[in-house]
């Protein structure tokens, strides 16, 4: 299964890599919002992990655009944010995000979530 991790922090991308390593995931990376949008449209990943605070285009906007585009609206969007306030969560859900992780997040919880998405997909297929 293809998934995209978009975060301006290389170490965070590394963390996601290590978390999902060895489970037959194809992990794509993007360092900012614009790049994330390009990769998502080009590679059509099943799931996108989006950091909200990113240069050039923030995660919420990426999410909104992905959900607005019929080609990409099926992609499961999970937001990662360093901001734990209610306001951010509401904004994220309003932008059409499917799930929401607050930094610091648990890699195993992330793994569980990704597994669930894969099973749903295989169930649906």
């Amino acid at each position, binding site marked *: 299964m293809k998934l995209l991790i978009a975060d301006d922090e290389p*170490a965070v991308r590394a963390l996601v890599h290590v978390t999902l390593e060895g489970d037959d995931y194809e992990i794509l990376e993007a360092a900012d919002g614009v790049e994330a949008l390009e990769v998502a449209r080009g590679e059509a990943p099943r799931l996108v992990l989006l950091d909200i605070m990113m240069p050039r285009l923030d995660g919420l906007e990426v999410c909104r655009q992905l959900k607005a585009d019929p080609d990409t609206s099926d992609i499961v969007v999970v937001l990662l944010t360093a901001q734990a306030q209610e306001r951010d969560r509401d904004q994220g859900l309003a932008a059409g995000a499917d799930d929401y992780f607050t930094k610091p*997040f648990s*890699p195993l919880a992330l793994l569980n979530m990704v597994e669930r998405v894969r099973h749903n997909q295989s169930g649906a297929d």
Partner: protein
Amino acid sequence: MRRLRVQLTVLLALLGLLVVAWGAAIFLAARDAARSNASLQTTVERVDELRRAATRLSRDFVTMETTRRAYLLTGDEAARQAGARAEESAVRGFRRMRQLSDRWRSLLPLVEGVATEYRAWVRTGQTELAAREVDARAAALVAARGNADRHFQALWRRQTDLEDQLARAQRASARSQDRTYETAQTLAVRTALMMLGALTLLATWLRRAVGAPADALRSASGRLAGGDLETPVELGVENELGAVASDLETMRRRLAGRMEALERLRHLSAQVVGATSLQRLAEVVLDGLRPEVGATRAILGAARPGGDLVLRALAGFPDPGVADDIVKADADIRQVLPLETLRAGQVVGLANLDRLAASPALRDLVARMGIRSLALVPLLSRGRFLGLLALCWTERHPLDREQEALLGLAGNQIAGAVEAALRLEEAERAAGEAQAVFYAIADGVLLTDPFGRVTAMNRALEALTGWTEAEATGRPYAEVLPLATEQVDGPVDLVSRYGRKVPVAVSSAPIFDARGRVVGGVDVIRDVSKEREIDEVKSALISTVSHELRTPLTLIHGFAELLVLRDLPAERQRSSAVEILDASRRLARLIDDLLSVSRMESGRLVLDPRPLDLAVVVERILSPFRAMAAKHTLRTKLPTSLPVVWGDPDKVEQILTNLVGNAIKYSPGGGEVLVTVDADGDAVQVSVRDQGIGMSPRDMGQLFEKFYRVDREEVRRAGGTGLGLYITKRLVEMHGGRLWAESWPGVGSVFRFTLPTSDELAGSGR
């Protein structure tokens, strides 16, 4: 001056004497009359008695004659006896006649004549009788009879003479009585005429000495009563009435003087009404009262609500500095001031201050004021004690009652004006205060009339709106104060005349007059751009800090969890541990930087400056970099001799380390890092040049802002808190230096800063 009384006494005494004389004259005349009347009466009575006796005698003569004749004719014995009885009666009659007439010598011969004739007649009669008895012869008889008749006729003549004589005497006495009465009457009438004359004289004199002056006095007092104080009162007499007139004249003069003084007081009160300040009032009052009482200086004190007096104005003092002396001696003055008496409205005259000044301080004060006497005039308005007017004389001056009364009146006259002046001053002060507050207040204030038109605006609002008060006055307030708001209850922006938007907080209130009617409105407009900016900065900072803290925390948490729960290959375990270590360092550095920023911003970061040789510091900080940075060439360009700079060694090292660290960090391709130190006037300039990625002009603008990081992958990869340059710049500025940068994307950057030399005073206090 007792003349009138003496004159009157003398006159009355004379009058009394006259009355007594008149009475005596009448009394004496009456007594004389009475006396002569009594003697006349006796005479008359005797004359009457004599006449009666004479008449009886005559009757007896007739009886004797008739009986004798009858006897002679008839011989009747009875007739002879009757004749005898008549004879006896005649004898007694003669005796009586002699008795009665012994007082009148003129009568006695008459009576004796009658008696002689009688005797002759009786003898002839007896002869006749004898003739009859002896011989009744007719011849003898006839002869005898002829004799007897003759004698009888003689007797009868004599008797008639007597009676005539008596009747004459009776008439004479009556005449004499009448004469006595006439004399008394004449006397009484003359005396009465004299008295009438005297009374007329008295009346004339009274009219001249008393009546006319009394009339003049009456009309003079009438004039006075009628208010005519112009005409003098003069009598020209020198008695008691003249004295009364001269008293009246004195009274008139004093009254006229009082009236004149009152008139001048009226002028004074008219003038004081025009005096709006207490100072002016004191001068006017002094000018007005000087001609009346001679005082040359005046002090005006006003009562405070607490009851003590405050000096408010001086007039006529050559040295105004006396005011300070009076204020200084306030406590001593208060001790001797008869406040209770003054409060009761009583003017107090202090004629001899030399004796009165009890304390040395007061003696000094009195000497410095140069006065000898004082009059304290209370100023009462509708019973309220407003203050005190003290009039001063440079010489001794005891107040007389008239002046005291005048000053009391003057006090009443000017009290109203004093009250008005006090009120006015108070109102002006309050208005001045209000105006000063209005214009000085930092918030914008706008006053409007009930129709919303601007009546006043203060300086702060002029600055906010761009309108001047003169331009704005009379315009609708919405034109001067256009407010824009995006949502109800949201933040409000004021749009200035030139389109600038200023976030404001507005509070408005109506202005009421005393009767509760709205007479206008007040709007207070506070420029809250600072507050809003601070709010925005604060929330941005919190969000940034939270983000910056959570990122390393995420890494630590994430890799640690993987290490604990996942069975990672050994190589992965190691790289995860390195990530954790890096993240921990980053976290620690972030916290250090945040604390530095906080200390600097709150002023708690204190420099410990001392003279420094920058060449030495540069060499010292470069050595660890040289050990680490393999790809970079670190070079220095130091002159042989450098001025000593003034700086905190640790902080200068921090500045240099940050700049050199950045130069290495942002030239990932390696290259040369050149550190140059040069003397630059009063300062030493240090520049750090790299051949790194460089920056765009947009980035340069925000380079020194907190948490600003150039938005590039290389930068992100290099890590960093976004606080380094901010802190560095602040540190340089704290030393009194300057930090700036030049950069060309893809070519490299130069960061330069200056530090003052030790000759120059460093900003060590920051």
